[in-house]
């Protein structure tokens, strides 16, 4: 029982106290990281799976909790995202090895993976649990310690989720402290975490201010900027399919993914057909006056109206006094201009899609570039087309590092209906003032020590097949002399890998027989198929 200590002199908000608080948490993480680096691949995977399983089982519970706490999004979609970032994520990376050295006989090199150490992971309020799952599992796959800094608006559900994962990790043999969460995040406290020399890298997802702050912390950072995806529908596209995918994408979790389409651009020859198809797919097309109501509601002088974030189309329409059919999935707002003059062409984390008809292909491309110039550079863009040349023209022209073709952009750019790496952290690269332009994955959380021999063929390369790379596993517990049951333990000079592994054969799923595992896989596969089905 922790005593409630009444303090007569309150200093917990002072800089030294905040710094000390951060240091103590990070120092524990550092310890955990230093031990984690001794783990072999089998043990590591065993831990990853145990944690993923916990996350998977809790997907529904935290989906509800997150929607309840933040007011954003759709429970059922959040559940799906929470699941996709658990077992399927692990399955995606199952065959990749972030632990063992790579021996390259031809080039006389050995590459040894070196975990970053301590990852400080900021998670947003929009996709709280999915991002937590994703970042924690990436860290574990690469034998890093992670400290989650949840967005204050999603604090409670994140703290609970992270603690559950931490418990599962330790139970599976992970070093104590390899998963931690900042229980009472505040901006000054997070700044201390970001500035600490005990933080190895900051994985920042969230508001622009936070991301910039991560970059100016003096620590290495992988920060990602905001999105504002243009989607171009070329006359060569299958209109029906395009419309359906766009509506599915925009309505998925009420557009809370930063990869959702923001501005649709098309050409006069496709306009009528596309409008028709959108309506059929569940879109409501607003008239000029309704667009003005939407505009006034969604954009205040100080920016986007957060009350609308992650709300459904009917709710938003109601707030604006627009009468729409009850089954309306998205609101489409035709606009004549793009750019600073038209607020509707900014990022909208809600199922409202701006709709613009350009004169011709050339103008469409320059309009798409303008959307990303406004905001969302380096992020995502989508195109629906049958003609590869227009895809090529579009892709080389927009300043986005992922261009999703004939797929819903929300899911597609995040790697869930494309073959991009599944992620909840979209690298916005140099266009978006970030260090990485790909979908962030575990490979970004290790660097490699390259052992390089003399290239002269007269100098032979060594034999590393049987070399010992120090997979010594957890440290044995020090004895507490005289304490019953905690006396001196017999210790092998080379501790074996985690006891949990011995005898389990594959190491993949102790405590879960293969039938249960199969069943789980089947369920996941079904869920994934359901998402994909949304793409006709």
């Amino acid at each position, binding site marked *: 029982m922790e005593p409630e*200590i009444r303090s007569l002199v309150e200093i917990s908000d002072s800089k030294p106290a905040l710094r000390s608080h951060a240091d103590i948490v990070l120092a524990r993480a550092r310890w955990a990281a*230093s031990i984690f680096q001794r783990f072999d691949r089998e043990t590591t995977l065993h831990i990853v799976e145990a944690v993923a399983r916990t996350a998977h089982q809790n997907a529904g519970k935290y989906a509800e909790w997150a929607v309840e706490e933040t007011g954003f999004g759709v429970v059922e979609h959040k559940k799906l995202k929470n699941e996709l970032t658990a077992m399927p994520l692990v399955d995606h990376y199952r065959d990749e090895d972030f632990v063992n050295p790579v021996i390259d006989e031809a080039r006389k090199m050995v590459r040894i993976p070196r975990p970053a150490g301590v990852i400080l992971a900021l998670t947003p309020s929009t996709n709280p649990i999915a991002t937590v799952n994703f970042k924690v599992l990436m860290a574990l796959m690469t034998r890093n310690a992670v400290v989650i800094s949840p967005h204050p608006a999603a604090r409670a559900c994140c703290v609970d989720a992270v603690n559950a994962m931490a418990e599962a990790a330790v139970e599976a043999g992970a*070093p104590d402290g390899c998963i931690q969460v900042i229980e009472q995040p505040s901006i000054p406290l997070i700044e201390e975490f970001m500035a600490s020399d005990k933080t190895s890298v900051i994985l920042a997802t969230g508001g622009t201010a936070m991301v910039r702050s991560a970059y100016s912390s003096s620590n290495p950072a992988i920060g990602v900027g905001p999105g504002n995806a243009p989607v171009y529908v070329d006359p060569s596209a299958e209109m029906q399919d395009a419309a359906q995918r766009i509506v599915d994408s925009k309505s998925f979790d009420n557009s809370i993914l930063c990869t959702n389409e923001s501005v649709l651009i098309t050409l006069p020859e496709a306009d009528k057909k596309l409008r028709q198809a959108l309506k059929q797919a569940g879109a409501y097309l607003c008239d000029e006056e309704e667009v003005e109501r939407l505009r006034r509601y969604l954009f205040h002088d100080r920016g986007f109206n957060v009350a609308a974030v992650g709300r459904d189309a009917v709710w938003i329409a109601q707030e604006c006094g627009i009468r729409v059919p009850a089954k309306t999935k998205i609101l489409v707002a035709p606009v004549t201009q793009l750019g600073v003059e038209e607020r509707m062409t900014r990022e909208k984390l809600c199922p409202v899609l701006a709709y613009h008809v350009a004169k011709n292909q050339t103008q469409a491309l320059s309009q798409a570039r303008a959307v990303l110039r406004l905001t969302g550079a380096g992020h995502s863009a989508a195109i629906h087309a049958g003609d590869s040349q227009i895809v090529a023209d579009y892709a080389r022209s927009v300043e986005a590092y992922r261009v999703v073709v004939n797929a819903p952009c929300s899911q597609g750019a995040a790697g869930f209906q494309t073959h991009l790496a599944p992620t909840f952290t979209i690298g916005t690269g140099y266009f978006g003032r970030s260090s990485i332009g790909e979908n962030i994955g575990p490979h970004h959380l290790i660097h490699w020590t390259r052992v390089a021999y003399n290239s002269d063929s007269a100098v032979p390369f060594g034999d590393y097949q049987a070399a010992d790379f120090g997979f010594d596993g957890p440290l044995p*517990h020090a*004895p*507490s002399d*005289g304490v019953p049951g905690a006396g001196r333990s017999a210790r092998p000079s080379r501790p074996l890998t985690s006891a949990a592994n011995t005898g389990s054969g594959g190491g993949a799923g102790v405590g879960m027989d293969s039938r249960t595992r199969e069943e789980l896989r089947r369920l996941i596969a079904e869920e994934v198929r359901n998402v994909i089905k949304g793409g006709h």
Partner: protein
Amino acid sequence: MSQEKLEFLQRSKEFWNPAKTQDWQDMGVDLVIDKREGYYLYDMDGQRLIDLHLNGGTYNLGHRNPELVEVLKSATERFDMGNHHFPALARTALAEALAACAPAPTMRYTAYGSGGGEAIDIALKTARHAMKKRKIVSIIKAYHGHTGLALKTGDERFSKLFLSEDTQDEFIQVPFNDLNAMEDALKKRDVAAVIMETIPATYGFPMPEEGYLPGVKKLCERYDALYIADEVQTGLMRTGEMWGCTRYGIEPDIMVTGKGIGGGLYPIGCTLISEHCAGWLHEDGFGHISTGGGAELGCVVSMKVLEMVQRPEVRATVGLISDFMRAGLERIMEEYPDFFIGIRQHGLVMGLEFNHEQGAKPVMKHLYENGVWAIFSTLDPRVLQFKPGLLLSQPDCEDVLRRVEIGIGLARDEVMGRGSRRGAM
């Protein structure tokens, strides 16, 4: 040595303590601590030392821990030492906080001294008052401080000098880990209290054998004596638990904490007293008076110390440091098996045992020369006290082990001679 330091040492001999100043020179440790920060000490000539002495846990949370400095600074805006006769906000708040984390549910009151020794004296006086008996049993080579009564419980090396040893047969000493001797001392039921360091520090941390401390507690109960736990060095999370005695299943009647409780910034000693032996606090509350005891600035710092050491991260880190140090020390022991012959350990309470009467002294000297400050055990110089801080970082621990390996190697060569047998690498 710089001219400046030489001159300073001269002044130290002239005005402070000539013999002690010279003794350190003779032991090869010419340390004059100047700047200090975290677990680092800087000699006035600039050499950096990692502090593994910590004055017995005084600097558990590091030197000048910024959070503690901040709380002390803020406290000065409102408090000073306070008036020791009156009910006082900070003294009461600390007593309440101590009661909340005490090792026995019966513990309620805290009486204050200005340091560990005085708190021990309060404990002994409290026991005598409660039991209406004079005799006190302590352990041979125990160390409870140098105040009037505490001094008499300890080694004669310190009491005789001042003609202050016990002459009334009121202070009985028995060997550690010997329940028969303890029983013999208690049998006549004329003993007021047994005072126990949970792990005797100055004696080089010999570890209590399994069942020993609970056995002593049982004997106390059988023969109407109180059990006083001296947790001055073993308390405050050093064993991975708030109080060392808890780890051995002991609920003492009286407990003393000192050193680290003041955060290394404001000296304070606390005696926690159970209701059933707190008679004098009801009978005559003016019975013990100490102007500096429980000074309110110190109380504010202590409350912060209690809050900090009980953070879950701190507890976890203590475990990690213990395991890491143990693994590293065992490797070093394998390297010098003829010299480095034992590790006594409970959490961060550690003693390294060497195969020579005075073995820990050359080790101390070579560690000092290699940037680590750890002190030998005054009452058993075969043993080096090895006391890492609660928050020592992973890189610092690694660095300590690197330096210790070098230092022990050099000390071994000095003591055993080069070329003689060493362990297999």
